């Protein structure tokens, strides 16, 4: 990064944070602090919902996913539009009708205090555990690539988000997210255009797409019923539906983004905005990764994309072995380039047999380079069992640093930080709100009537969660597997929480005692299955939800005194 990049990065990030904090510095009403301005329109709500979901990892890892495995990951989002229809039609009107601050406050109205506390506890446990990861995950990648100190990157990012989130609460979060998403969209479109311009002359988007397709990178929809396949149309619709319904309907970090606003209409249209744009947006990011793959087919490509880690090991005691692997990969890559050129030459000549033969040779050449990459990762692990061998997260950021002009590099680094700040702000805001409303106000009902004190407490608790997140990121010592573990933890709890809410909305005769014990039993069942089965963790969203609903219904039949609260909607 040069001076221009630093100016772009600092002006955009500090400018947006300062603007958000300054503009909302007089937020002294609890309602505005926790729900945002009452004048907020659907565009701001829609962008805020999108920004909360899209973390820095979205823009670092998903292009890497497109590069490595193709765009099939887009199917993971197929359940999202359907889930958002349910949230718009059922969840949101009831939250607005009851005027709740948190989704768990609704459980207290519908069932009883213990069920409300259970829902809030599940959220705080799951989000609290993930709190450090959302700062740590992008910081480790950016610090590695940019040569920054990891601890200072974590602390700087964490303190910046704490300052404006604590100052203006939900109003500041929505306001800054709008500008941050502007930076993100601008940066990603710029990267896409420059990538297309950097492709070989005459190839163009169509030619690049044909190359990517020939290597199997553009298989967006898989209709197969093979249970061993991770991403198919069916797992995307079913698993994605339950995951999205739970996330958007019951996770306070999302609920908080859309329950405020000028009217019910604004929240609904904000969600519809996401239902329409989310799949195209994810497709675009994955396609960007697939096109980066094509770009490297016509350029010298590294054998290992985490160049900092690679430089460390090649200068170590086994450096000669790694350099030999690098040379082997370079030779095979050059041979592959010839095969690709040969395939492109015969592709449009109408000779199907020659085209098929050239394609087979090209795919075989790609398998040979892939084999050397696998061999390299195995050698790295043998040399150092703690080596971070997952390099796909470094593909896009490496492309940015090496191929984009100065100024645009600063803009793309700003994209990563904007995404990290936006998602972290939504998360801290929700953790502070849930702790204030569902714990502090619950246990201090008299003090809860003092609005100024409520706001002060919410600010202190938001700051406290921010400090916890920074401390967790600094000292937890995450590994790559732990980052995935945070997703697994989410799936373990999400299903049961969704089950509680589905009972609340659709099984109106069931009361708090049945659903409370049903939820605990379902959670225990999910834990047992998690430690005994080896199925994909996405299935626990469905299993936990179904178990909670069924067990609540059975317990309701067995418990004669189980009845809904009198204030149930």
């Amino acid at each position, binding site marked *: 990064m040069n001076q221009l990049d630093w100016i772009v990065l600092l002006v955009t990030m500090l400018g947006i944070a300062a603007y958000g904090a300054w503009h909302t510095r007089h937020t002294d*009403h*609890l*309602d*505005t602090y926790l*729900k945002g301005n*009452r*004048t907020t329109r659907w565009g701001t709500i829609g962008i805020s919902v999108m920004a909360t979901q899209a973390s820095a990892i979205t823009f670092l890892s998903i292009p890497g996913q497109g590069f490595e495995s193709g765009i099939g990951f*887009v199917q993971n989002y*197929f359940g999202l*539009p*359907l889930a*958002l*229809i349910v949230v*718009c*039609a059922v969840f949101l*009107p009831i939250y*607005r*009708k*009851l*005027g709740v*601050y948190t989704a768990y406050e609704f459980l207290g109205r519908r069932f009883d205090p213990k069920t409300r506390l259970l829902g809030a506890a599940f959220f705080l446990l799951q989000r609290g555990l993930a709190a450090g990861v959302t700062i740590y995950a992008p910081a480790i990648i950016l610090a590695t690539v940019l040569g920054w100190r990891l601890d200072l990157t974590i602390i700087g990012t964490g303190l910046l988000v704490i300052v404006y989130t604590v100052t203006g609460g939900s109003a500041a979060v929505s306001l800054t997210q709008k500008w941050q998403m502007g930076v993100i969209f601008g940066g990603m479109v710029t990267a896409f255009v420059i990538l297309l311009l950097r492709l070989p002359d005459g190839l163009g988007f169509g030619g690049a*797409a*044909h190359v*990517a*397709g020939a290597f199997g990178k*553009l*298989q*967006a*929809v898989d*209709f197969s019923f093979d249970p061993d396949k991770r991403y198919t*149309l069916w797992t995307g619709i079913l698993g994605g539906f339950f995951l999205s319904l739970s996330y958007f309907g019951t996770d306070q970090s999302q609920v908080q983004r859309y329950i405020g606003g*000028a*009217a*019910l*209409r*604004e929240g*609904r*249209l904000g969600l*519809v905005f996401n*239902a*329409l744009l989310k*799949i*195209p947006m994810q*497709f675009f990011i994955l396609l960007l990764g697939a096109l980066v793959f094509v770009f490297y087919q016509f350029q010298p490509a590294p054998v290992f994309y985490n160049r900092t880690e690679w430089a460390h090991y090649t200068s170590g005691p086994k450096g000669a072995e790694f350099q030999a692997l690098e040379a082997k990969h370079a030779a095979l890559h050059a041979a592959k380039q010839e095969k690709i050129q040969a395939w492109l030459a015969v592709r449009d000549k109408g000779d199907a047999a020659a085209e098929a033969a050239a394609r087979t040779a090209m795919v075989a050449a790609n398998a040979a380079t892939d084999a050397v990459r696998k061999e390299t990762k195995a050698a790295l692990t043998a040399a150092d069992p703690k080596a971070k061998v997952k390099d796909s997260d470094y593909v896009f950021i490496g492309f940015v640093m090496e191929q984009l002009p100065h100024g645009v590099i600063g803009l793309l680094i700003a994209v990563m930080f904007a995404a990290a700040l936006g998602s972290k702000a939504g998360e801290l805001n929700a953790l502070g709100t849930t702790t204030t409303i569902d714990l502090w106000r619950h246990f201090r009902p008299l003090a*809860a*009537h*003092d*609005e*100024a004190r*409520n706001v002060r407490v919410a600010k202190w608790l938001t700051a406290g969660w921010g400090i916890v997140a920074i401390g967790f990121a600094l000292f937890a010592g995450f590994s790559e597997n732990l980052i995935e573990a945070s997703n697994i933890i989410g799936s373990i709890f999400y299903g049961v929480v969704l089950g509680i809410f589905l009972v609340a909305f659709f099984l109106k005769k069931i009361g708090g005692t049945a659903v409370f014990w049903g939820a605990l039993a379902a959670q225990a069942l999910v834990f047992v299955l998690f430690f005994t089965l080896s199925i994909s963790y996405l299935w626990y969203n469905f299993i936990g939800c179904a178990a909670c609903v069924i067990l609540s219904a059975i317990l309701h039949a067995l418990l004669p005194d189980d009845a809904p609260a009198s204030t149930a909607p």
Partner: protein
Amino acid sequence: MKPADQQPDGGPRPPSKGAAPGRVSDSRIPDDPADEAPGVPGFRTWKGIYVFVFVTFVAVVAALALFSRVFA
């Protein structure tokens, strides 16, 4: 909610600063009309919007499947 409680644009009235010093205001219950029109040109009901979202979803999946086939 009474019509007087709404702003001209139909949104709920913002919290009153001087209504109850030191107390939690009652402004957090907006009481939206359940059958509020979407106010989107071409759509008279929310059901129409949801059908549009569903049809768009099906069209996007079909377009992605076609994209996969064209560039396979």
